[in-house]
C-alpha cells in the first residue's frame, strides 16, 4: 500500500557553505483563502487526495470540547478538526510520533505537522532509535508559542482569545508560557549568524530536519510561505503542482527580526536564571514543593525509557538505613531523593532538551521545571557544541567521544596545555 514515491534521500539540498553564499530562499508563496488554518488544511487535504501521503498526523480539536489532541488522519474530512497551531501543547509531538513508529515503520507514508520544538524532539528521538523516520515526512510551522496548559484548562475561551492576540504580536504576550517567550527557535530559518548556538555548532550544518516548512511570519494572514527544505519536500510540492520559484525574502527578514528580539530575551533570561539556580540551597528551594509524581519526566519527549531508574526500586533502603540517614540531619524528607531525581534526570537528558516546556505544563505544583532545564541545558549544549534536533545524522554527545578533548576538565589548574580552547572560553 505504498503510495507515492517518497524516498529516503538524506542529503539536504544545500551544504552549509552553500547556504552562506546563497541568494534568498526559494519556495512557494500560497495566497490565503479565508484564514491561515483553512489554507493549511486544504493543502493537507490535497496531499491525501493526491495520494502523496497515506495519512497525516496533525493537532486536532476533540469535537464538542475545548481539548486538543493528536490525530492521525487518513480520511480527509477529519482534517476539518485540525488546528495547525493550537493554543496549547498537549502531548509533545515527538512523543506522539514516537508512539506511532516506535515498533518499526509502517508501510504507509505518513506526514506529521508540528511546531519546531516538536520537530527537534522528533529528531532527538530518531537519534535515540525511538522514532523510525523512514516513511515520515515532517512539516514544521512558524510557532508563536503556546499558553500554559493550566491557564488554558482554567479558562479555555479566554486563553484561546489571548492566544489569537499573541499570534498578531508574534510572541510578545504575557499570556504565553515563559519558555515560549524566550524561544529563538520558533521557525526553521536555516542559519542564524547571531545565534550563539549556531556559531558554536561543530558540523556547521545547522540545517533543520523538517522536509517542508510552513512560514507564517510576514504573511499578514494574506499569504503563507512554503519552503521545501529537503529533496523529498521539493518532490512533494511538485506533486501538488506547486512551483517553488518564489522568493521568500519577506518571510526571511521577518524571521530574522523576531529572532533578534527573542535572542535578547533569551540572554536576559540566562542572566536572571544563572544566579537563581546557583548553589545547592537555591536549587533545592526551587524544588521544595516537588511531590515526586514524575509528571515532568512522563511529559518529556526525550525521557523515553520504558522504566525510569528513578521509578525503580533500586533506591529503596531498609528502615534502619532510613533512620540512620535521618539521624544525621535530624529529619529526612520523603519521598526520598527528590533532588537526585531532578539532577539525575538533568544529567540524562539536558543535552537533548529542546525547551518545549511540556514538563512545566505537566507539573501539578507549577514548578518552573522547563525554565530550570533550559537554563542548564543551554549551557551544557553550548559546552558540547551540540544543537539538539537540528541534524539527523549527528550523534548525541554522550554517545561519542574524541580521544583528545576536554583536557581542561581533567586536571584543572595544573598549568598543562589544554586541547579544547574553544570550549574553555565557555566554561
Amino acid at each position: 500500500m505504498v503510495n507515492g514515491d517518497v524516498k529516503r534521500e538524506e542529503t539536504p539540498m544545500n551544504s552549509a557553505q552553500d547556504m552562506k553564499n546563497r541568494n534568498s530562499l526559494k519556495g512557494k508563496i500560497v495566497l490565503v483563502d479565508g484564514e491561515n488554518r483553512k489554507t493549511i488544511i486544504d493543502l493537507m487535504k490535497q496531499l491525501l487526495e493526491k495520494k502523496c501521503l497515506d495519512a497525516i498526523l496533525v493537532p486536532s480539536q476533540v469535537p464538542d470540547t475545548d481539548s486538543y489532541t493528536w490525530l492521525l488522519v487518513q480520511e480527509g474530512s477529519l482534517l476539518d478538526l485540525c488546528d495547525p497551531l493550537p493554543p496549547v501543547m498537549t502531548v509533545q509531538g515527538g512523543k506522539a510520533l514516537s508512539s506511532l513508529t516506535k515498533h518499526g515503520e509502517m508501510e504507509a507514508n505518513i506526514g506529521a505537522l508540528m511546531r519546531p520544538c516538536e520537530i527537534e524532539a522528533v529528531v532527538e528521538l530518531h537519534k535515540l532509535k525511538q522514532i523510525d523516520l523512514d516513511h515520515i515526512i515532517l512539516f514544521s510551522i512558524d510557532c508563536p508559542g503556546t499558553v500554559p496548559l493550566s491557564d488554558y484548562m482554567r479558562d479555555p475561551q479566554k486563553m484561546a482569545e489571548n492566544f489569537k492576540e499573541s499570534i498578531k504580536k508574534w510572541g510578545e504576550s504575557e499570556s504565553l508560557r515563559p519558555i515560549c517567550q524566550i524561544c529563538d527557535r520558533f521557525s526553521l530559518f536555516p542559519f542564524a549568524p547571531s545565534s550563539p548556538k549556531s556559531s558554536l555548532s561543530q558540523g556547521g550544518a545547522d540545517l533543520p530536519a523538517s522536509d517542508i516548512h510552513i512560514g507564517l511570519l510576514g504573511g499578514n494572514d494574506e499569504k503563507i510561505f512554503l519552503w521545501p527544505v529537503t529533496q523529498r519536500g521539493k518532490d512533494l510540492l511538485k506533486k501538488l503542482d506547486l512551483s517553488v520559484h518564489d522568493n521568500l525574502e519577506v518571510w526571511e527578514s521577518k524571521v530574522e527580526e523576531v529572532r533578534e528580539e527573542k535572542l535578547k530575551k533569551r540572554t536576559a533570561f540566562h542572566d536572571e536564571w544563572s544566579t537563581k539556580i546557583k548553589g545547592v540551597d537555591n536549587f533545592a528551594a526551587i524544588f521544595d514543593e516537588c511531590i515526586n509524581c514524575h509528571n515532568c519526566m512522563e511529559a518529556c519527549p526525550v525521557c523515553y525509557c520504558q522504566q525510569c531508574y528513578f521509578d525503580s526500586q533500586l533506591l529503596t533502603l531498609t528502615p534502619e538505613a532510613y533512620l540512620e540517614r535521618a539521624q544525621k540531619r535530624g529529619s529526612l524528607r520523603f519521598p526520598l531523593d527528590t533532588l537526585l531525581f531532578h539532577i539525575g534526570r538533568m544529567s540524562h537528558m539536558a543535552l537533548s532538551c529542546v525547551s518545549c516546556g511540556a514538563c512545566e505544563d505537566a507539573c501539578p505544583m507549577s514548578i518552573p521545571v522547563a525554565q530550570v532545564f533550559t537554563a542548564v541545558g543551554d549551557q551544557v549544549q553550548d559546552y558540547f557544541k551540540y544543537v539538539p534536533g537540528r541534524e539527523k545524522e549527528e550523534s548525541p554527545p554522550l554517545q561519542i567521544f574524541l580521544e583528545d578533548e576536554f583536557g581542561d576538565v581533567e586536571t584543572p589548574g595544573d598549568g598543562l596545555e589544554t586541547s579544547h580552547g574553544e570550549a574553555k572560553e565557555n566554561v
Partner: protein
Amino acid sequence: MSDAIKINKGIEEAVQDLLKSLLEKDKIKGVFTLRKMDDLGAVAYSLFTNADELKNALPLYPFMPVNAGKVLSDFTLQGATQEPVAAVLRPCEIRAFIELVKRTQGDLENILLISSTCGGVYPLKILKGNDQKSRQAQYWESVKKEDIDPELRETCRMCEDFIPHNADMVIAAAGIEDMDTQCTIYLNTQKGKEFASDVPGSKTSEELEGGKIEELKTKRQEQKAKIFEQFEKEQMGLKSLVKMFAPCLGCHGCSHVCPICYCTLCEFDSKTCEYRPTSIESELKLKGGLKVPPGNIYFHLGRMSHMAVSCVSCGMCSDVCPVNIPVATVFSRVGAPLQEVFEYIPGRDLEEAVPSGTYKEQEFMESGK
C-alpha cells in the same frame, strides 16, 4: 468509652508535645509527619529523629503532598522496622497503607499510627501563596464549626470515613470548638495506651463518636449524594466519558501518585500497551483516523478494574492531573458501588482479603448463566 489523654494546649502544639515526648523518652526512634519546607507554604513528609527538629513539624497542616500510605510503604518495603516509629497520618492515608500491607508492599509492625478526626485537606494547586495564614485560620474555623469548606478537595468534602480505622491514637479535631486551648487524644489500642503511658497531659475516658461526629457525617453524606448526582447527570454514558477524558495527556500522573497503584512497571506503561504498525493500519482502515497516543480511556477503565475496589478516595489523582480531569470523583463514584457489592471497605481491616484476590463458592450465583 475509651481511654484518652487531655493536654491543655492548642491542638497543634499539643500534638507536637506528644511527638516530642515520645522521641525524647526514646519510646520511638522517629516520627513521620509533615515538615515545613519554606515560609510560603511548601511542605513535605519527613522522618524526624531529633526532637528539636520537631519545631518545623506541621502535623495537622491541611495539605497532602503525597499520600503518606505510600511513604510508609517506601519506608518498610524491605522489611518491618526493628525500631518503633510513629506516623501522623490522615484516615485515608492509613487506609491506603493497610491496603498496601495487604499487597505485601509494607509492614505495620513497630509502627505507631497516630491520626485525627479529619477535617480534610485543600487541593495542592493552592498550596503556595501569600494567603496561607488566612487560609489556615479559615480551615480551623470550619473544622471547629463542622462547616464544609467549599475550597477543600472534592473527595474530602464528601468523605464519610474521616474517623480513622486502625489508628493507635486519634486526635480529636472535627467539631472540637475549644481546640485552641485543649486537645484530646484517644487511645484506641493497647499499643496506643502503652506508648502514651507517660506522655504529658491528664488521663481521662471519653466517647469519641457522638452527636457532633454524626452530624458531620450526615453533612458529608449529603455532599456526596449531591456530587454523585451531579456526576451521574453529566458524566454518564460513552459520549460524556470521551468528553471527560478528552484532555488527558496520558502522563499517568494519576496512577503514579495513587497509593493503591503500587506496581513498579504498570501494565499501561509497558510495551504490551503500545501500538504496533499493523494495529495502527487496521484502526485507520476502520475509522479513517486515530487519536495519538491512543488508549487513554483504556488506561482509565483498565486502572479502574485494577484498583477502584480498593480506592480510598484520598484525592491525590485529581490533584496532580495537569488538565483538571476529576479523576478522584470518577474513581470514588465507580469505587463506591463496587465496594458495596463486595462488602468491602478498603483499609478497614488488615485481615480482610482484597476482593479481586479471593472468592466464595456461594456468591453472585446469578452472574454466570
